[in-house]
């Protein structure tokens, strides 16, 4: 695929197809406060739920006395694990094939675990009642890191599982061990990095919540839920709760950010639904900020060791990595079934070498479960971070500039499709062009010269780079699934008689701009103006089945489905046009919005004329109407890439570093709405900066979560976020219907290594090779002191 600097739109601005930066249609309601979020849903007679959570990290549950809470005016029920167990709902499956406690019955395994729920007439009463429940705990040793978890004398966390005698959640490997061993045996130099990618939290601004409304007369369960995957959740509800699936309707309203946090099913959803079923009234539960941060799906928390084998010329021969995952109390990574460490084996990144081997192990600890794909395609973030950090360290060891080292090891454009040593088939790429563009934008050589001069004056300047490759858009159904559901996706398109249309999606926006972007795909394919197309999603009764939005899959998969269903309609439109023009379908020529007879351009009909005819004057041998549905199973993943460069100034007296420049060149193939893509990249870079600079969830030795509110878990605002300078190259995906790749996560995936590499680069001449994230000033200062 040819790489270009920009994709030229083929439709007019009035049509607003692919390549036009049209304003986001959803923003009109959001900026006027007229969105409809979960907490805006209020039903007649609705009750409120609050959750009592464990204050300790590891303890046997001795007794629960709820008599005082039950006696409080306005309290209808206190739900305990015992009650849930009576309905066979005390445990539920996770997305990684484990089981998770809905409400504790035997013991509590992390601080914040759900112990009991109060159902009351208002939330204030429910919260007051929580304080009246008396729980007796018998405390056990809390395990706060996976290293301790794996020691022989560590207490067993999963006493609920038969035949389990240790705290190992999984082991897994990928790649070719023998070939990798041989590569290392032939190496003239081996470079090793040990680093921790700390636990972080997706922390969407809107927390998770549910309004469960089970009608006792009809058995119909209408469930409003902050869900990134409403269809998959409907099926899981049917399987877990035993409700007939035709009676379950999940409505995911406007969502204030998801980032992977709204992929799992949480205990609160199950209890609220069960309570509504038992009481016969709607039940609402909306998490507090603290509940969201301490109990719902976290991201990362991988301890990683990576080694690169190098030859005399600085060529990479092989890569060996070993992972230890801090899993929390339950194994609930959201990831395809086959892949126990997600897609971490993309760790070979943008580089061409023959041998790689990945080993991974997960350990249970007394922390919240999670391992969700936080703005990330299933652990690709950790992989990208490790390889890009290793690349820079390897360049130092062989005395080569990190950019040059990348250049000689990149996969070359003529090698695509490229099969990686762990079995991925990269669709397209041109890594050197993107890197060169970023270097030109930042003025790489000038800054390197300034860095040298600054060191002479005792000033510290650092330049860090990351040339990442992502793998997104799961996926081909033969390989990728979630809980057994294959990862295709769907689109249904109905063109109304007046030429306006409604598009119904199996994917679900959480702020990404689907209502704009997906309308633009239809506009591109059918020539109907994007502003004439309504986009509907999130309501399982009114949209086709899909796996939802996460892991940058909406454009690669749902976008593919949208283009394909529009093409189906265009094929039918051609037949109707032929009927109207009294010509043969093969003799018609298409331009956006119009069919005309070849050689007689005046003999033409618009797509709007055709739509009207579909309901008023359709050919006798065709069905009436102009609508269709398409289930798209992508032939491959897509592989967006790019180069990010960060320049920092570092105060050696204090260890404080500040970002002077941040240049980001992204190649996500064809950009549907360039403005929205820029916004996605801005957001992702901000999250990458946060992780590099300030953000982590940590625990004290007792297992208390440090980071339970936004005073302790830091989310950067516009004030401290650096200014970003964006650039692009365009290498279309050869297999995607419109050449697009996913982009929502590229910047979160690629940027942390660029920031950290920049800080390391400022002190590399002192011998510093690693500072773990977040790169806090005390860690930098200590690294300098110890150098």
């Amino acid at each position: 695929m040819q790489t270009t600097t920009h994709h030229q739109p083929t439709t007019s601005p009035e049509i607003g197809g692919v390549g036009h930066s049209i304003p986001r249609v959803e923003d009109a309601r959001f900026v006027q406060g007229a969105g409809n979020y979960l907490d805006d849903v209020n039903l007649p007679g609705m009750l409120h739920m609050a959750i009592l959570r464990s204050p300790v990290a590891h303890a046997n549950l001795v007794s629960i006395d709820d008599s005082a809470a039950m006696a409080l005016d306005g309290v209808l029920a206190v739900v305990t694990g015992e009650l849930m167990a009576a309905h066979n709902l005390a445990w539920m499956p996770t997305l990684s094939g484990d089981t998770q406690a809905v409400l504790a019955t035997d013991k509590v395994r992390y601080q914040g675990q759900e112990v009991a729920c109060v159902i009351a007439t208002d939330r204030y009463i429910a919260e007051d009642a929580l304080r009246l429940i008396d729980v007796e705990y018998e405390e056990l040793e809390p395990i706060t890191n996976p290293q301790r978890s794996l020691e022989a004398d560590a207490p067993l966390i999963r006493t609920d599982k038969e035949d389990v005698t240790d705290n190992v959640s999984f082991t897994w490997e990928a790649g070719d061990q023998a070939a990798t061993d041989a590569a290392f045996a032939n190496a003239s130099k081996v470079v090793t990095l040990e680093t921790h990618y700390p636990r972080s939290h997706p922390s969407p601004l809107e927390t998770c919540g549910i309004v469960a409304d089970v009608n006792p007369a009809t058995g119909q369960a209408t469930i409003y839920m902050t869900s990134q995957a409403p269809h998959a959740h409907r099926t899981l509800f049917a399987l877990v709760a035993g409700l007939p699936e035709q009676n379950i309707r999940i409505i995911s309203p406007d969502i204030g950010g998801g980032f992977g946090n709204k992929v799992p099913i949480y205990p609160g959803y199950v209890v609220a639904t069960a309570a509504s079923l038992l009481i016969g009234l709607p039940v609402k539960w909306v998490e507090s900020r603290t509940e969201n941060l301490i109990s719902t799906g976290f991201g990362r928390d991988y301890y990683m060791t990576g080694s690169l084998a190098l030859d005399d010329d600085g060529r990479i021969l092989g890569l060996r990595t070993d992972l230890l995952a801090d899993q929390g109390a339950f194994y609930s990574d959201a990831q395809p079934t086959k892949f126990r460490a997600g897609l971490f084996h993309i760790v070979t990144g943008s580089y061409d070498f023959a041998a790689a081997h990945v080993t991974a192990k997960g350990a249970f600890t007394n922390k919240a479960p999670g391992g969700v794909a936080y703005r990330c395609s299933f652990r690709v973030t950790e992989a990208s971070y490790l390889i890009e950090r290793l690349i820079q360290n390897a360049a130092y060891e062989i005395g080569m500039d990190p950019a040059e080292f990348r250049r000689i090891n990149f996969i070359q454009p003529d090698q695509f499709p490229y099969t990686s040593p762990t079995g991925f088939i990269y669709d397209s790429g041109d890594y050197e062009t993107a890197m060169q563009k970023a270097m030109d934008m930042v003025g790489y050589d000038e800054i390197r010269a300034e860095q040298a001069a600054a060191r002479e004056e005792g000033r510290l300047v650092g330049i860090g780079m990351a040339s990442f490759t992502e793998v997104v858009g799961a996926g081909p159904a033969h390989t990728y699934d979630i809980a057994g559901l294959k990862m295709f996706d769907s689109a249904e398109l109905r063109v109304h008689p007046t030429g306006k249309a409604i598009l119904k999606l199996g994917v679900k926006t959480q702020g990404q701009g689907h209502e704009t972007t997906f309308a633009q795909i239809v506009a591109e394919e059918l020539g109907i103006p994007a502003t004439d197309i309504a986009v509907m999603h999130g309501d399982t009764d009114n949209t086709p089945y899909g796996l939802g939005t996460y892991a940058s899959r909406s454009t690669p998969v749902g976008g593919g489905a949208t283009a394909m269903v529009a093409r189906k309609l265009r094929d039918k439109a051609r037949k109707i046009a032929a009927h109207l023009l009294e010509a043969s379908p093969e003799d018609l020529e298409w331009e956006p919005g119009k069919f005309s007879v070849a050689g007689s351009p005046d003999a033409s009909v618009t797509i709007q004329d055709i739509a009207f005819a579909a309901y008023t004057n359709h050919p006798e041998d065709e069905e009436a109407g102009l609508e269709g549905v398409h289930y798209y199973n992508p032939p491959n993943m897509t592989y967006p890439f790019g180069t990010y460069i960060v320049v920092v100034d570092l105060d050696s007296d204090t260890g404080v570093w500040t970002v002077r420049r941040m240049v980001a060149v992204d190649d996500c193939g064809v950009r549907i709405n360039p403005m929205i893509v820029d916004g996605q990249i801005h957001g992702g870079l901000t999250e990458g900066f946060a992780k590099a600079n300030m953000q982590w969830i940590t625990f004290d030795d007792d297992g208390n979560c440090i980071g339970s509110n936004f005073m302790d878990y830091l989310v950067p605002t516009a004030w401290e976020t650096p200014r970003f300078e964006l650039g692009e190259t365009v290498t279309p995906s050869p297999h995607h219907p419109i050449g697009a790749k996913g982009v929502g996560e590229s910047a979160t995936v690629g940027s942390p290594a660029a920031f950290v590499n920049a800080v390391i680069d400022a002190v590399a001449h002192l011998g510093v090779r690693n500072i773990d994230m977040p790169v806090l000033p005390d860690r930098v200062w200590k690294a300098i002191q110890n150098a």
Partner: protein
Amino acid sequence: MYPPAFEYQAPDTLEGALAALAELGDEGRVLAGGQSLIPMMKLRLAAPSHLVDINRISDLSYVRRENGSLCIGALARHNDVVGSDDAKASGVVSSAAPWISDPLVRNRGTVCGSVAHCDPEGDWNSVMLAARASVVAQSSSGSRTIGIDDFIVSFFTNSLEPGEMVTAVCVPIPSGASGGAYMKLERKIGDYATVGVATQLELASDGTIAQAGIGLTAVNYQNTRASAAEDLLRGETPSDELFAEAGAAAAAASDPQTDVRGDAEWKRNVVAVYTRRGLAQALASATS
């Protein structure tokens, strides 16, 4: 936000507020900007049974010069100090104001509320130590003035009696050339200080240091005056070496804890660096 139930009143006059506080004694809490109290109530860390909201008492909303002092009334918001010409009379006060939390908090939170809160991670009490402030406390039975060193008792503890409230805090305006600086290391805008150092210098006509004030934030169980460092400076001619010595003395006066914000040894180092840099900045503004 789901706090426990509480009673609430919002008197129109100071007399009304003081009468309410006299009646409520220990049960009453003053609500001014609410930027610390409301989050604590939200987390149920504080559960006052009765709030006396003073936001209607507009007489208390001032930043002004009074009898050789800069006085800040109980309803003056942090941002009122940021925008005040009068506040420029105290270098350390005007330097610190833009460093308080974030713009949202500065628009709502009050200086006197922060002083009364005595959070050792709060900025204003270090500034008030450096500026040698006095706190004006009133109750239904009268008014008294408390020196800032006596006002700060301990961790979240002041020396107010039940029924008393802070109505103003006043700092003396230096008669000679003076300058001040507040240096704050924070993780992000809106964060509490990881380390904060307030410095104020007043010069004699011969250029020697007539008075020095240094207050330290977040490195002890309360905001702390670096007395030994001040003693080192007083009467001396300013120099880089002198400021470095004062920095070392300030570091010695700090006893920070290792926590998620950073390691104790590093924090002590930051105290030394920021004291040195703050004094240099204070001197530069005193002599400019």
